[in-house]
């Protein structure tokens, strides 16, 4: 395809790629590096400490207040978002100052950039990384999304689009992709299950603990605890550690994560919210480890039920599909754990291979960027 001049606009809070937490920034990094590899001229607007082979432009030399970003991924996002909007707005508007020197602008800043799109001749496409459900439940954000309904939006899953109350002009649904080679396939089989993520109520850690206790299996918990979640961690999660089968291994860097995920029997991912994507499910499957997830958010798009893990309806009142596991909620998690434990070595190995294959086929950076290139071209040709 024709080589393009592309601007990637990242939020100013976390470096691209992230040093620890930051799924969005990891994806932006993957897109940027792949576009450079394909010969495009890419400028990345991001926090000052970012690492990229593209041209890096940083209106702010250092990443801005990180706690602000953690809040961006919480139900309080719509409140706190605006409290931190001064630097965010400055970052975006200064990034777009010279927008006309690009062929296309690929924006990742929620709806911060769209406010300026009418002043720019260059077409802009925005990947919405947050929850459109939360956004459309907030009167403010709903109004903004409605104002910019016809903008070129990209959803990161069909679920994200489905749970939006605003009928946005979604030009494409593009799943996140990873480099499977960075997550080496593992055949070694430990007995333990794993739960990995930022330790917060929304991510369903309580149900994961209940299910492992009821099935008397081992669980390794890994993840950061932010100040905001300290009390939750201390009162709800920590008491479970008296059970010898449950261990906490702290936050994991990339290498530790691969070991933790790869050597586990399966990942437990009983989300309490409609997560728009869930990169950790893809990373786990890339290591060959099955995923047991509540059938919420994008989980049904990522996990192939009975093949790369199990989908579980989160409660009898919330039936999303007719899955292999018939029980719901914690009982459903228990059933899934038991099923995995009871698989023959042969069947379990097949599940691991299928998990890896599914990632190689559907969730690679190459595939993601192929689709983004198509979107850029479609927009430029209309």
């Amino acid at each position: 395809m024709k080589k393009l001049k592309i601007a990637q606009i990242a939020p100013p809070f976390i470096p691209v790629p992230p040093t620890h937490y930051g799924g969005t920034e990891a994806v932006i990094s993957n897109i940027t590096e792949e576009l450079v590899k394909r010969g495009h001229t890419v400028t990345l607007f991001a926090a000052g400490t970012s690492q990229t082979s593209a041209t890096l432009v940083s209106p702010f030399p250092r990443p801005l207040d990180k706690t602000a970003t953690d809040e961006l991924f919480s139900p309080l996002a719509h409140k706190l978002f605006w409290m931190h909007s001064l630097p965010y707005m400055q970052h975006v508007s200064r990034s777009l100052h010279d927008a006309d020197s690009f062929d296309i602008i690929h924006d990742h800043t929620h709806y911060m950039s769209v406010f300026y799109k009418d002043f720019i001749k260059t077409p802009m496409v925005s990947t919405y990384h947050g929850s459109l459900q939360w956004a459309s439940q907030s009167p403010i954000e709903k109004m903004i999304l409605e104002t910019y309904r016809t903008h070129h939006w990209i959803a990161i899953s069909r679920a994200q689009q489905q749970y939006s109350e605003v009928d946005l002009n979604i030009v494409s649904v593009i799943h996140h992709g990873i480099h499977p080679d960075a997550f080496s396939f593992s055949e070694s089989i430990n007995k333990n299950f794993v739960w990995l993520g930022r330790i917060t109520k929304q991510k369903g850690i309580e149900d994961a603990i209940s299910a492992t206790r009821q099935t008397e299996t081992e669980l390794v918990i890994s993840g950061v605890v932010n100040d905001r979640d300290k009390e939750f961690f201390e009162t709800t999660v920590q008491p479970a550690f008296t059970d010898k089968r449950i261990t906490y291994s702290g936050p994991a860097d990339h290498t530790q994560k691969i070991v933790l995920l790869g050597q586990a029997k399966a990942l437990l991912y009983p989300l309490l919210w409609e997560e728009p994507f869930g990169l950790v499910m893809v990373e786990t499957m890339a290591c060959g480890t099955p995923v047991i997830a509540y059938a919420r958010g994008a989980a049904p798009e990522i996990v192939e039920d009975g093949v790369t893990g199990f989908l579980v309806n989160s409660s009898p009142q919330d039936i999303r599909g007719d899955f292999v596991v018939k029980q719901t909620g914690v009982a459903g998690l228990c059933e899934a754990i038991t099923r995995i434990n009871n698989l023959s070595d042969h069947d379990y190995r097949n599940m691991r291979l299928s998990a890896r294959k599914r990632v190689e086929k559907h969730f690679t950076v190459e595939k993601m960027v192929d689709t983004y290139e198509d979107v850029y071209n479609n927009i430029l040709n209309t």
Partner: protein
Amino acid sequence: MQHSMKIALTGILTRSIGRQTYGGTEAITYHLVEELVKRGHDITLYAASDSEVSSKLISVCSSSTARIVSMNGDLAQPYSMLLSRKLAEDANKYDIIHNNFFHTYILSAFAPFIKVPLVHTIHNSYYTNKDWTKALKSYKTLSHETYVFVSKYGQQRAAPFPRSTTIYNGIDEKEYAFNPISEDYALWLGRMVPEKGADLAIQAIKQTGRQLILTTVPMEVKHNEYLNHTIAPLLDDSIALHISTSVKEKIQLYQHARVFLFPITWEEPFGLVMVEAMSCGTPVIAFARGSAAEVIEDGVTGFIINPSDKDIRGSWKVKQTGIEGIREAVDRIYTMSDTQYTRMRRACRKRVEKNFTIQKMMDAYERLYRSILKTN
């Protein structure tokens, strides 16, 4: 005669802007608009749809809509952003744009896409907040942006801001008419929030055995905690609490007060109430924070007090600090001879007439607009 200018102004969205407004920022915006219209300029105000002004008005929402989505009294950013976008689209229709949003940066973020000169008046006191200061350090103003601070204190504190100047706020001195004699009560007036120091005023006045009238506007529920838990237990026969939104009543209270107490616990960027009181002839006792030392002439139009022994801002007539300092200043004002006290009331009025009238403020803004247009 100089030709008229086409000027767009923005105003705070969470309040309607009109003659009856009570708060400082929106009152200044109202007077700016009205006076500019009177002076023959072509004015458009971008503000809440329920504003009542003689200029053209462009809106995206009413003040009540903006208040519903605001989290912190004034944080109606999304609507301010939409209104800013509208103004940025219209920008070429104007010679100059004067930003009076309480959150200045919202329009400033559109500056790269606006070709005409922008004047931002900082009504806020961002510069006293550590986090904001950090953010502002990386904040690059563009060459067509000029910043106006409402006190030299603000301008210095916010440094380095290129192309910045100080223009004091002004009031309608005819409305805040001079009263040469007073009654016996001391007055505190403001929003009932800890920053305005009503509790300190009460504590100081109780030590003097004088009467204090506290006047405030009805507060949003979330601020009632201060009123109910801090102020209410301090009330007794010597303290009267008066809740009203009437500007007329406010002026009468100023006119008849012996002294106005302003024991602020934050760095007030301007403090319009000090000027309103002085215009009516009432001396002001204030902590030496923010703009206070620029507004009050120590010993002449009132007294300036260092906030505490650990926070000495200058060498003032009253040597004691904190509540003790306020008490000493109150005693001094109540024990002055009639001649001395009358002289002080006259000096208050004169200081306002000379420095803090709408006319003075408008002359300064008009000069600023013209000088910017000349160089751009």
